[in-house]
């Protein structure tokens, strides 16, 4: 019967502090210093999970990060964190722990019926059943399978946890704080380098924490104190390096809720090694553990097997486990797969009363739900009753991080495992990750790695050389590979987490899935949180043997981040909800907020959509606001427009190059509408640009393209036209703007600026003047987006609200009111002005009916490619106006356009880009892109909106719905 007892003394637990927790709803107690795993083992909870496919009972395999079985959900409701590794997570008071993948409990699991249906879940089951000819069924089956078999479930309620992330920099990042890492951090730290030491465990020391030797503990404690006294060293605990990225960037998770992104100049890998399981029948039964885990539970958590332990090993390291157990009064038997282990080990075993059976493995593990006895194989085929079986198949260096950048590990025969295939620039390895085992070797490695890093950094090496403690355990690592059992083994597991057995690998081989990458995908080997930590090398070796090739030639799978489970929340950090992206606010934002403005998101901007004076609902409010502008005077916030100051002796030449139409001859005090193309002849943006002086222009761009245009102008000036003496500066945030529009707008401006002549003669259509007002300079421009008599007033941002209020007050007698984005965008549809919805980066000038604007005299960007064959086609989707012919229906943006004889199917001949109710025409009108464009003027067509099963008849008309002569603009 599997079981552990607390030893009377020893361990790194605080016996004075009892900690209460719940596990699957029941109350338990353990001690401060326990992990979830040691706390459960101390309470005789040895079956803690069910396996992924077969729902076999599972116990803890390990005492570390590689744990494939012991994953738990912590917390409740919105604070639930699934897939927490029980072997590395410290127990805290009041912790609510739940097992996963078992219902109703791990000890009695209804789904274990899957075991009876095991042949059903054969290798490649998922592929064959769901990804083959019937692959469409995957979407139906997948949720069911995930529910029955799988890891923890994410909570379905809103998370209540807080997450955060930070960035930092260092000279030397040391990953791992075992003997190699500690030595490296000390050497680097003493040189004055900025050091970060990242340790995934709750304390520094690595393997030393699992030892009971005082001399090692003293060395660890002294080293830790020295490091803590160095101000240039940061020690991060519970800090797992999850991924390494280009140029030595490391992403570290700190517990479940925080992420730190470290930019390191050099990185020292001191990640150690994971013990490898051995492959034999029923090696997944609770009670079968890694040998090193038994040592950790004994020496760190004061948990000894109740009476008897069997150790099976192919290498020397497991003897230290056996010796420690024997000294804690556990009866120990060793099954040794090798013929003749070292004499000194046998002598010490004899001294401690440990029986060693050479040339022996494990034939089977006996017991019901968990281990009761083991049956040895080979010459000594005895059956031994025991509490636990500790297995050691050797050590796999933790090479994962070294290969995140694409450097594949390479197989090393001397240690029968993979070592790093190399290191990226500025990265070094030390200790067990290199396959160098033993304390002295690790400390030597760590020191040397730090010295190499310091040389890279141009820093002096510390004078003080450190002595490494001498221990009896510090011997060379001797191993003879033993990959497979001699006997038939129906249930010998390679990957405990994904339930991949020896048989599955054989079947994959038989079906031709030979390469390791195919093997992985076909059998799911090494997927999940395991990521090859325990499973990889055994499977590679077995496949290589089948294929009759050396293991080195069988290749290896690619290790990718994250190294261990981490929360999505930590990755997202604070960039959730409204912080997902920045919010931009106009300088008039506060005014809109206080005066009935209703906001809408437009890109990053919060814009005033409509105002409550016009009604409660946007569908009706914008129409009232449109009527205001068509009959009286309204004021709208246009601050989001891109605003670029263009200055320099060559400003005129520069603008002449980037706009299709001419700007060099634009008189001072005049504005002009301009369109710019990309090099490929496609329309980039439009806007009005005014000439302020001989050498200064004031450009406006669309809101959406402001950043793009600015960057484009800088690109041209900096990279290609350095001969032009021009400078551009963005004023988008520095200046605000407002449009005063409607037949009474001139009257309104005259009331606002009584000393300025704004008559048609003084400020004609497209006229621009800078005026001094209220201690600043305002830019008055007679521009119109709505088609009415209209002006824009621009000013420095901090004057925007006072100026707006001043105009509102001065023109109060004209009943001036604000109008929002919806009305602004609808007025321009009536006028037939194109905007962002039409300028979709696929149209040519001709598509938008703007071909006539382009200069025939001067060169301009995009001129050559504008005339390429494709852009000259008569079949292009071009701008049309559309009028609804059926008054009882409505039009929708995005509706698909068909000729009246067409079958209503597919992508049609175009689509509607913008729709509005026309206050002038008293019907729905729209702009759209239609195959052949205005060639079809007057034709009746159909707009289909399949999502709502709507169809409506339309007529193609000129996009200029109102005032075609422009008499209002020039009034």
């Amino acid at each position, binding site marked *: 019967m599997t079981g552990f007892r607390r030893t009377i003394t020893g361990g790194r637990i605080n016996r004075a502090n009892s900690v209460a927790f719940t596990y699957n709803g029941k109350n338990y107690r353990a001690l401060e210093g326990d992990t979830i795993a040691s706390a459960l083992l101390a309470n005789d909870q040895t079956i803690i999970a069910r396996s992924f496919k077969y729902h076999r009972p599972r116990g803890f395999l390990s005492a570390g990060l590689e744990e494939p079985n012991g994953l738990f959900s912590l917390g409740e409701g919105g604070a639930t964190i699934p897939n927490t590794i029980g072997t590395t997570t410290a127990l805290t008071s009041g912790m609510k722990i739940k097992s996963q993948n078992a219902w109703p409990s791990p000890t009695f699991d209804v789904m274990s019926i899957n075991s009876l249906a095991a042949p059903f879940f054969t290798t490649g089951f998922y592929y064959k059943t769901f990804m083959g000819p019937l692959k469409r069924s995957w979407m139906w089956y997948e949720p069911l399978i995930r529910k029955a078999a799988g890891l923890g479930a994410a909570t379905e309620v809103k998370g209540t946890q807080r997450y955060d992330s930070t960035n930092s920099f260092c000279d030397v990042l040391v990953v791992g704080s075992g003997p190699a890492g500690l030595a490296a951090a000390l050497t680097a730290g003493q040189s004055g380098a900025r050091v970060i030491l990242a340790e995934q465990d709750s304390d520094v020391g690595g393997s030393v924490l699992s030892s009971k030797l005082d001399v090692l503990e003293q060395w660890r404690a002294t080293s830790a104190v020295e490091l803590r006294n160095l101000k240039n060293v940061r020690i991060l605990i519970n800090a797992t390096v999850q991924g390494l*990225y*280009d*140029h030595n*960037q490391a992403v570290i998770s700190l517990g479940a809720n925080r992420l730190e992104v470290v*930019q390191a100049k050099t990185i020292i890998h001191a990640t150690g090694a994971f013990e490898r399981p051995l492959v034999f029948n029923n090696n997944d039964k609770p009670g079968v553990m890694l040998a090193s885990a038994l040592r950790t539970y004994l020496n760190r958590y004061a948990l000894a097997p109740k009476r008897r332990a069997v150790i099976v090993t192919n290498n020397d390291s497991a003897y230290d486990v056996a010796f420690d157990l024997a000294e804690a009064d556990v009866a120990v038997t060793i099954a040794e797969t090798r013929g003749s282990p070292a004499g000194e080990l046998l002598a010490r075993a004899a001294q401690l009363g440990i029986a060693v059976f050479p040339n022996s493995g494990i034939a089977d593990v006996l017991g019901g739900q968990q281990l009761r006895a083991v049956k040895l194989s080979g010459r000594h085929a005895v059956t031994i009753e025991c509490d636990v079986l500790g297995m050691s198949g050797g050590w796999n260096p933790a090479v994962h991080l070294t290969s995140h*950048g*694409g450097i594949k590990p390479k197989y090393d025969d001397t240690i029968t495992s993979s070592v790093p295939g190399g290191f990226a*620039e500025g990265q070094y390895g030390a200790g067990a990750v290199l396959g160098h085992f033993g304390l002295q070797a690790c400390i030597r490695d760590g020191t040397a790695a730090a010295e190499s890093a310091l040389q890279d950094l141009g820093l002096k090496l510390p004078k003080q050389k450190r002595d490494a403690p001498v221990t009896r355990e510090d011997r060379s690592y001797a191993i003879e590979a033993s990959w497979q059992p001699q006997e038939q083994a129906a249930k010998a597991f390679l990957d405990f987490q994904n339930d991949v057995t020896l048989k599955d690998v054989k079947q994959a081989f038989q079906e031709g899935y030979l390469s390791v990458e195919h093997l992985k995908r076909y059998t799911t080997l090494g997927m999940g949180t395991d990521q090859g930590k325990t499973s990889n090398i055994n499977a590679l070796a077995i496949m290589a043997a089948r294929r009759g090739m050396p293991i080195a030639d069988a290749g290896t799978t690619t290790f990718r981040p994250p190294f261990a489970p981490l929360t999505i929340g930590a990755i997202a950090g604070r960039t959730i909800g409204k912080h997902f992206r920045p919010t931009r606010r106009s300088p008039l934002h506060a005014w809109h907020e206080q005066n009935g403005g209703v906001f809408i998101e437009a890109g990053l901007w919060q814009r005033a959509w409509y105002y409550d004076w016009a009604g409660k609902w946007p569908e009706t409010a914008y129409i009232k606001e449109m009527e205001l502008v068509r009959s009286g005077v309204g004021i709208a916030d246009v601050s989001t427009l891109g605003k670029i100051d263009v200055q320099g002796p060559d400003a005129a030449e520069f603008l002449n*190059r980037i706009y299709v139409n001419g700007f060099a001859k634009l008189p001072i005090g005049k504005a002009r509408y301009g369109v710019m193309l990309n*090099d*490929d002849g496609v329309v980039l943006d439009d806007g009005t640009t005014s000439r302020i002086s001989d050498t200064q222009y004031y450009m406006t761009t669309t809101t959406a393209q402001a950043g793009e245009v600015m*960057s484009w102008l*800088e*690109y041209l000036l*900096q*990279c*290609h*036209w350095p001969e032009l003496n021009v400078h551009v500066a963005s004023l988008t945030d520095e200046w605000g703007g407002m449009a005063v529009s409607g037949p009474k707008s001139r009257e309104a401006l005259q009331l606002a600026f009584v000393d300025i002549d704004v008559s048609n003669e003084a400020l004609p259509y497209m006229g621009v003047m800078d005026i001094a007002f209220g201690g600043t300079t305002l830019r008055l421009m007679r521009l119109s987006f709505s088609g009415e008599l209209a002006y824009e007033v621009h000013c420095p941002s901090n004057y925007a609200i006072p100026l707006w209020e001043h105009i509102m007050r001065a023109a109060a007698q004209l009943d001036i009111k604000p109008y929002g984005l919806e009305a602004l965008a609808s007025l321009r549809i009536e006028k037939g002005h194109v905007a962002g919805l039409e300028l979709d980066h696929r149209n040519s000038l001709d598509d938008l009916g703007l071909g006539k604007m382009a200069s025939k005299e*001067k*060169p301009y*960007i995009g001129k*050559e*490619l504008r*005339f*390429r064959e494709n852009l000259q086609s008569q079949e292009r989707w071009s701008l049309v106006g559309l009028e609804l012919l059926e008054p009882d229906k409505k039009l929708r943006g995005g509706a698909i356009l068909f000729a009246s004889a067409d079958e209503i199917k597919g992508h049609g001949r175009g689509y509607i880009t913008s729709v509005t109710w026309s206050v002038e025409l008293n019907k729905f009108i729209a702009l759209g892109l239609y195959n052949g464009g205005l060639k079809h003027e007057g034709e009746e067509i159909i707009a289909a909106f399949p999502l709502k099963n709507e169809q409506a008849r339309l007529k193609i008309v000129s996009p200029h719905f109102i005032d075609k002569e422009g008499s209002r603009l020039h009034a």
Partner: protein
Amino acid sequence: MRLPCPHCGERDYSEFRYGGDASKPRPAHGTGDLKTWHDYYFLFENPKGPHTEYWQHVLGCRQWFKLTRNTATNAKVVV
């Protein structure tokens, strides 16, 4: 990835925008026929290895610059 801004020094790549291939000269303004511009705008090598390209320190000093980057490894970033 870190990129060397000639004005601000080394910064995280998230501060930059990519500006495309910088290995070909742009035809002088107002020169070149349709074929010249077609080849300039649409035809690119897609090397695995060193690649000369434009970047802008768009969230910094806004300087445009050229650098050579190994497209396979992102290594050896040289201005």
